[in-house]
């Protein structure tokens, strides 16, 4: 396949994953704003940071308030990681990779874009926000579903998978990065209702509040959340789960191409970061340091994949 096509597939799925994750973050932030309005500004600030939009936000707005932040995260063309911008970029990449997509996949991304283009034309009212956010997630699921159900399991599929899991690992790690201070064991000693709400928000941001309660019934403990999001291989948005999927995809490509470029080893190194360690060791290293390290390893891996498989000239 063409290097450009591989790159477009990778980025199409990556942008969709990003759009979906951002809609989750808005959802979680919005809930805080509704229930604990005094904490809203702090919460929005961390969401802006997690989506790397804090700087561009301050260029457009003086104060952080719910209405402006939601609008900026959802619809702003000035925000490269707004849901709107991500979906637009996903569709553009889809057009570029049109010959590598099945008809159902293409129609799913095209129709998703057309619906969102209409729904995001004007500012979304508080009343409509939940429906719009769930539409975003539905449309992304549709594309992934069409991909699972119709796509040939060849290298096209593998590059698409890489896009999904590299972005997902990145998103979860960013969330941990802006919230690490409430996940430290010491916080647990304090244990107040404020922390409880914060923890719920984190879990909601990865759509895992139910899963977590099933695995850890009773009181929420901060280190459990950290362990769950970083090391639990059953959790489809954990760092360990994503890193493992990334190595699987690269395994398949290696099998087909009969070469092991540098990215192959880097992927296994990334996986080792989250597999050959336990949560206590992570706290000893320092949660923040650990996550920062993981983020830069992920970014380096993504860059190396693009080089190894000639996404661009």
């Amino acid at each position, binding site marked *: *396949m*063409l*290097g*450009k*096509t*591989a790159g477009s597939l990778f980025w199409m799925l990556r942008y969709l994953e990003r759009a979906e994750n951002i809609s989750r973050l808005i959802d979680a932030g919005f809930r805080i704003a509704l229930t604990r309005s005094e904490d809203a500004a702090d919460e929005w600030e961390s969401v802006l940071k997690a989506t790397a939009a804090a700087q561009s936000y301050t260029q457009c707005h003086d104060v952080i308030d719910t209405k402006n932040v939601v609008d900026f995260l959802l619809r702003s063309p000035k925000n490269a990681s707004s849901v709107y911008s991500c979906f637009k970029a996903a569709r*553009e990449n889809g*057009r*570029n990779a*049109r*010959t590598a997509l099945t*008809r159902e996949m*293409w*129609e799913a991304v*095209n*129709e998703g874009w*057309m619906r969102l283009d209409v729904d995001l034309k004007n500012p979304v009212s508080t009343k409509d926000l939940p429906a719009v956010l769930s539409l975003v997630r539905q449309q992304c699921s549709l594309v992934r579903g069409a991909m699972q159900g119709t796509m040939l399991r060849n*290298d096209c599929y593998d*590059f698409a998978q890489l896009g999904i899991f590299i972005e997902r690992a990145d998103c979860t790690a960013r969330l941990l990065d802006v919230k690490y201070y409430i996940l430290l064991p010491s916080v647990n000693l304090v244990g107040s209702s404020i922390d409880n709400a914060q923890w719920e928000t984190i879990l909601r941001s990865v759509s895992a509040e139910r899963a977590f309660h099933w695995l850890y019934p009773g009181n929420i403990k901060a280190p459990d959340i950290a362990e769950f999001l970083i090391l639990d291989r059953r959790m489809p948005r954990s760092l360990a789960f994503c890193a493992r999927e990334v190595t699987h995809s690269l395994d398949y*490509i290696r099998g087909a*191409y009969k*070469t092991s470029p540098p990215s192959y080893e880097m992927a296994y190194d990334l996986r080792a970061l989250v597999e050959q360690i336990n949560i206590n060791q992570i706290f000893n290293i320092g949660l923040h340091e650990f996550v920062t390290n993981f983020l830069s390893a992920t970014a380096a891996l993504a860059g190396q994949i693009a080089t190894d*498989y*000639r996404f661009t*000239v």
Partner: protein
Amino acid sequence: MLDQNGTARPAYQAYYDWFCRQDHKSLRRKMGEAEAVFRRTGITFNVYGKKEAAERLIPFDIVPRIIAAAEWQKLSKGITQRVQAINAFIADIYHNQEILKAGIVPEKLIARNQAFLPHMIGVKPPGNIYTHIVGIDLVRTGPDEFFVLEDNARTPSGVSYMLENRETMLKMFPELFADNRVQPVNDYPRKLWNSLAASAPEAFKGSKPVIAVLTPGIHNSAYFEHAFLADEMGCEIVEGHDLRIYNGRVCMRTTRGYTPVDVIYRRVDDDYLDPLNFKPESTLGVAGIMDIYRAGGVTIANAPGTGIADDKAIYSYMPDIIKFYTGKPALLKNVPTWRCSERESLSYVTENLSELVVKEVHGSGGYGMLVGPAASRNEIAKFKSKLLADPGNYIAQPTLALSTTPIFSKSGLAPRHLDLRPFVLVSPDRIDITPGGLTRVAMKKDSLVVNSSQGGGTKDTWVLTE
């Protein structure tokens, strides 16, 4: 559809019977459905000069245009003859120029023509084919009376509409295809692949030549079609930056490295094909591709320089060109054409602007033309000064008494003018005409302009079996 007495013509009989049984409300609903299908599939085109990302749908009309088998057969013969002559003409122009020596086509028309590519002089394309894909634009004035409006010998577009229109009709009105025996068009992409493969350079002809579609990119107005054809043929769609020259071959950048391409179906204009040989600022082409081509290392379809045959000034010589190369009179008629470069013609044209259609010699897409009968006095006056400033740039034609076909409008069936572009595939051993083509229809009453860029629509084209 109907003759003067209001009875259905034979080819339309079965369709008309069916139509009379339908209620208009549900037909209108079907039209809405069709539009949704087109949008979802992404069958859109970009209109130049409109705001960025303005993707528009071409209006689709649900009433098919139906052509009887016998009429089609006759038409096919004329098209085959014309396409053969076009190929012979281009080969001659870039080699011995017999037709110029014989004084049939004036030399200055070639030498001063922008579409004439000196780079092609003496170059023998693989399989000796210049125009692998041709679209001949026809209009009908009466039974068995077709006129050629224009030859498209560069990169004719619209074939994806032919295919998608049929798909849409099959989905919406499956019962119609049980009542009417319509010749299929859906094997066009396969035939295109075969035809391109047969024209691969001799040295690389092997069992499965590598074919790629070269597109200017996703912002091109016809990108949908480029991707569609690549997808249907099962080959890569590349842009200039995906290609480079390696070891005397044109190679594409794949995830495993650079691999050679044997045949390039290009949808990029000549000028942009090669920044080393043509426009240096072009980023759409491949530096050095012309040199590889001239050395026989790759097939470019259509060959560079074929525009010399579909130029509107050359068009008026087509009957003589056909006679010269095939030895027989042209089976398909030309529309009478005044060349404004000739003094007598110019004075006739300037005096009769309100009756004529005047076109730019190098124009396309319906831009920059004057439709006299539909123009205001002011528009005519303006056009006249443009014409007089550069008469050689224009030709003029009478408006023909075009036949009409009904479209399904708000008030039911309504007659509209239309044209037809059949698609012809030329390979070293055969000429293939897909039974059908792109029917473009003026959606406005009495309008003669069918170009999609000017609001024209399309409809499915049926050629019946005998």
